[in-house]
């Protein structure tokens, strides 16, 4: 348990000291939203705005992939990854430390992306801010859990930048779809729909279990 706190503290401290990396992710998300705006400008009619939640989460997913790749790239310096492997603790805790640190980073980037998205696309997130925050949290939790597991693998393959999205994206459908449908429900004034929320919760649970158990084998030499 102490190891979990140590890793979480270390990662957040390193993140804070390397704020430029966090800024880079923020700007990246900003760029993605801008490009999406020109690629698929929203029309006045509601039917022309159905795709907006999808666009928002596309921006979030890509910014997250960037962040996750970097979180383990740091561990390669001075072979810190082996230091983690040497920690005399169940590696599930090492996973949780890294995943929660990534979660915090993803939430910060997600907040920024959502803010800019709401402004650009004239979307009223403010009125549903509380419930949207819950959906955003569940989405980020899924992303950071399975993302941390695959980042730990991808960082030690020979084609690192491509490998993480390659591994992550095909498995992200449940979380992303759940988040998009939930967000759409909020924006259409239907409130927090049960099915998408249920899908998000179940998916996060499955991802956390797979990653917690799988990390033991991924961290080995």
């Amino acid at each position, binding site marked *: 348990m102490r*190891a979990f706190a140590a890793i979480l503290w270390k990662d957040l401290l390193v993140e804070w000291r390397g704020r430029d990396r966090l800024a880079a992710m923020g700007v990246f998300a900003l760029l993605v939203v801008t490009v999406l705006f020109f690629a698929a400008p929203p029309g006045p009619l509601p039917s022309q705005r159905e795709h907006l939640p999808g666009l928002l989460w596309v921006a979030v997913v890509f910014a997250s992939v960037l962040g996750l790749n970097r979180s383990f790239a740091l561990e390669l310096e001075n072979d810190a990854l*082996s*230091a983690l492997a040497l920690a005399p603790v169940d590696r599930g805790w090492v996973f949780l430390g890294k995943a929660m640190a990534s979660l915090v980073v993803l939430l910060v980037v997600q907040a920024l992306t959502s803010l800019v998205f709401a402004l650009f696309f004239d979307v009223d997130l403010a009125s549903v801010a509380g419930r949207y925050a819950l959906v955003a949290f569940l989405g980020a939790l899924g992303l950071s859990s399975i993302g941390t597991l695959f980042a730990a693998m991808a960082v030690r393959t020979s084609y690192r930048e491509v490998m993480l999205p390659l591994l992550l994206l095909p498995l992200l459908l449940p979380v992303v779809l759940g988040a998009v449908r939930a967000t759409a429900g909020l924006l259409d004034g239907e409130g927090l729909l049960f099915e998408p929320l249920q899908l998000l919760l179940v998916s996060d649970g499955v991802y956390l279990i797979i990653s917690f158990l799988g990390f033991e084998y991924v961290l080995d030499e």
Partner: protein
Amino acid sequence: MSDGAGEPAIRARALEKRFGPVTALHPLDLDVAPGATLAVLGPNGAGKSTLLRMLAGLARPTSGELRVAGDGDGRAARRRRVGLIGHATFLVPALTARENLRFAARLHGLADAEARAEHWLAELDLEGAADRRSGTFSRGMAQRLSIARALITEPALLLLDEPFTGLDPDAAERLASRLADADRRSGATTLLVTHDLARAAQLADQALVLARGRSHGLDEACLADATVLTGAYHDAVSALQGPRG
């Protein structure tokens, strides 16, 4: 270096490691007395770091038995009593020396991380740079910090993976004296993997030669001095590799 008759610190019986059909380490028997320093010598690819990684609990033996005194259940328990110093320093550049040591201690689940960090900063006379980020350290200072990082958890088994590579002679000399001094004080059983036969003769009580996964123990007489050791080493290597097997 106590070589009490008691239960050996490291006991290996027919220890073997295979990567698929390739045998990295042939069946090896080994006994190392508590507190003793064993030098593991041999050319590249002989299986030295395979043996080291199995001792560190990072890799599982394919067959045979490997016991380190005080072995609890599972590899995590083994990793609690192991300290590893290698070419990689395991340091986090963005953290200061003090934070690196505290992190290492907490990673091992030690409660008094702050006190230990202060102690080992003094031990390796790094107080001056305690609050400087380790990313700005010279190679010598980084090496000292990585020694402190390994010893802060008071390992019963200290594994040194070619610590002298890339060091100029006097830096190597300083490191050798620090290691001997830290080893004597901590009483840890030490395993020194190196090519540097002079250092091996200077620091080790026992020696083992590995070549292409096969092992051959040298008796203590060989460790009298570097020249004797070099002779014994080359005989052992050619015996193990064999002209045509």
